[in-house]
């Protein structure tokens, strides 16, 4: 019975995502907002792979998100005007950086790990901020735009057609979600859960804990940088704020808000957060205060998130 419910829920989510461009305008949204939700949801789900399913708190995922974004933007601006190449480059840059930084931090735990991820995250912020001849500095990287995807027999015009871009983002999202779901069901994923539940016991069982955390970290950062490439392509623009620490905090709050022990939680969190931000920033200048207040309220009154709450209700 429970299994059936879960499948029904999965099917429902995919149906909603597939039909979003058609129902979003009816409830006052717009397709670009849908794309933004997908992109942030992907980043938050990537973070949740590490946070919710490995039990390791990273507060520096914006760095890899931003590296993906800059990688994609610079590929189109300086190398070749090709969207697929831009996505590939961005993901490679973000993943390699994560793989190199990983060994320095996987030995650390808890707050110490979180603090080091924050600090390492800022490295890339400073590079993007100060190396203005290449990155555009504070003004960001402009004067480039995403390219239609040429498939040989036909070309997909993601540049001018918002819906096409949404479906490109959804395709990437689906691949990433599929891979993460598959990994979590595999023995590897079960091992990560074991580490989350009891690291010491996992170590006694002969599991190389540090190496598993490193792998989980790299996978997580890889999908975060994929989200970053899409973010740059969506905006046709990228600036250092894409990789600043407040961006990392946004990913974490989305994950917590949706429910960090559940696979789809971050998607729900991202949707709520972005709709709220969209509304607030059009109504008040002091929306940063409200976002801050929102953080505080979620932590105090909603620490299990939306899905955590639903799960608790149904098991009672």
């Amino acid at each position: 019975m429970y299994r059936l419910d879960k499948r029904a829920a999965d099917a429902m989510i995919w149906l909603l995502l597939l039909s979003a461009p058609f129902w979003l305008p009816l409830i006052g949204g717009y397709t670009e907002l849908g794309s933004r939700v997908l992109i942030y949801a992907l980043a938050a789900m990537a973070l949740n792979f590490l946070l919710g399913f490995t039990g390791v708190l990273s507060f520096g995922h914006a760095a890899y998100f931003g590296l993906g974004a800059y990688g994609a933007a610079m590929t189109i601006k300086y190398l070749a005007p090709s969207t697929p190449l831009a996505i590939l480059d961005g993901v490679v840059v973000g993943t390699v950086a994560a793989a190199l930084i990983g060994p320095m931090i996987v030995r650390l735990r808890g707050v110490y790990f979180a603090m080091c991820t924050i600090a390492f995250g800022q490295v890339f912020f400073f590079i993007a901020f100060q190396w203005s001849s290449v990155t555009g500095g504070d003004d960001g990287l402009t004067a480039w735009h995403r390219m239609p995807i040429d498939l040989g027999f036909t070309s997909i015009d993601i540049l001018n057609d918002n819906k096409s871009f949404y479906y490109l983002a959804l395709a990437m999202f689906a691949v990433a979600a599929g891979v993460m779901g598959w990994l979590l069901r595999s023995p590897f994923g079960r091992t990560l859960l074991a580490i989350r539940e009891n690291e010491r016991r996992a170590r006694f069982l002969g599991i190389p804990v540090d190496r598993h955390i490193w792998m989980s970290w790299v996978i997580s950062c890889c999908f975060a940088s994929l989200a970053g490439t899409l973010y740059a392509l969506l905006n046709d623009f990228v600036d250092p704020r894409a990789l600043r620490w407040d961006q990392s905090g946004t990913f974490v709050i989305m994950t917590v808000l949706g429910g960090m022990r559940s696979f789809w939680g971050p998607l729900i969190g991202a949707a709520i957060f972005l709709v709220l931000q969209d509304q607030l920033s059009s109504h008040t200048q002091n929306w940063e205060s409200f976002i801050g207040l929102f953080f505080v309220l979620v932590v105090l009154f909603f620490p299990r998130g939306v899905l955590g709450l639903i799960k608790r209700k149904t098991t009672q």
Partner: protein
Amino acid sequence: MTQLLIFNVVNGLIIGAFYALMALGLSLILNLSGVINFAHGGFLAIGGYIAYTLVPYFGFWGALVLAPILTAFIGILIERVLIRRLYGRDPLYSLLLTFGLAFMIEDGTRFIWGAQSLPFQIPEWLAAPLSNELFFLTGYRVFMMVLVAAVVLALFLILSRSRLGLRIRAGTLDLETVSVLGVNVRVLRNLNFGLGIYLAGLAGVLAVGMLGLQPNIGDSLIMPSFIAIIVGGLGSLPGTLLGGILIGVASGITTVFFPSASEAVIYVMMAAVLIVRPRGLLGEEGRF
């Protein structure tokens, strides 16, 4: 060349003193309560702005004394109302909470005092250079270094000699036992938080005398303070002090040779420490 080097080493010492002040406060709170206080930079800004408001009534010296104390009171209040609820829970939550606070404080100071940067007057005799040869060495800079040294000395005396300091140190090692021995741990953590925020407020007053007032003045100081803690070693206050001064001086010296790398060198030092000695220079083994 030597003058340039001296200039930048002195500069680095001053910046390092700021990092150390911030990092010591962060470290106190982190050690006893397990909370990374993201809003620390915000408290620094509050300290600066309160001083700015007090100067017309109490003068520079009055503001220097009063502003950090008032900032500490705000900190104590916030700990009572918000942060206290999160002790013993996943550090994730206190991180998110102080993160939200940082947003609110920055936006709040902008709302109250305005977004434009404000001037902060220091006494004239302090602003003047001490000698013609070392023109960069104003009285204010020397005064800052002396004051920071005195405050740090006082802090370490409090921690090693007073009953409160003894309890804070004991609580850092084993809070449960301290509680069983009849110490009110809630009050202890509250006071300790206030002490940490006092240091942030003091750093704020001193910083605005040099840099002027801006709502985001804490932003540029908070990351190096984290790194000071990591380099010095988690759980060790002398380590934090050492870490702060080290990265300050290192970035000062780098400014002489590669000006554009003055920020980067801090992160390089952090990476080097994490590779060679993950617990930090003076950190205890196996604590984290």
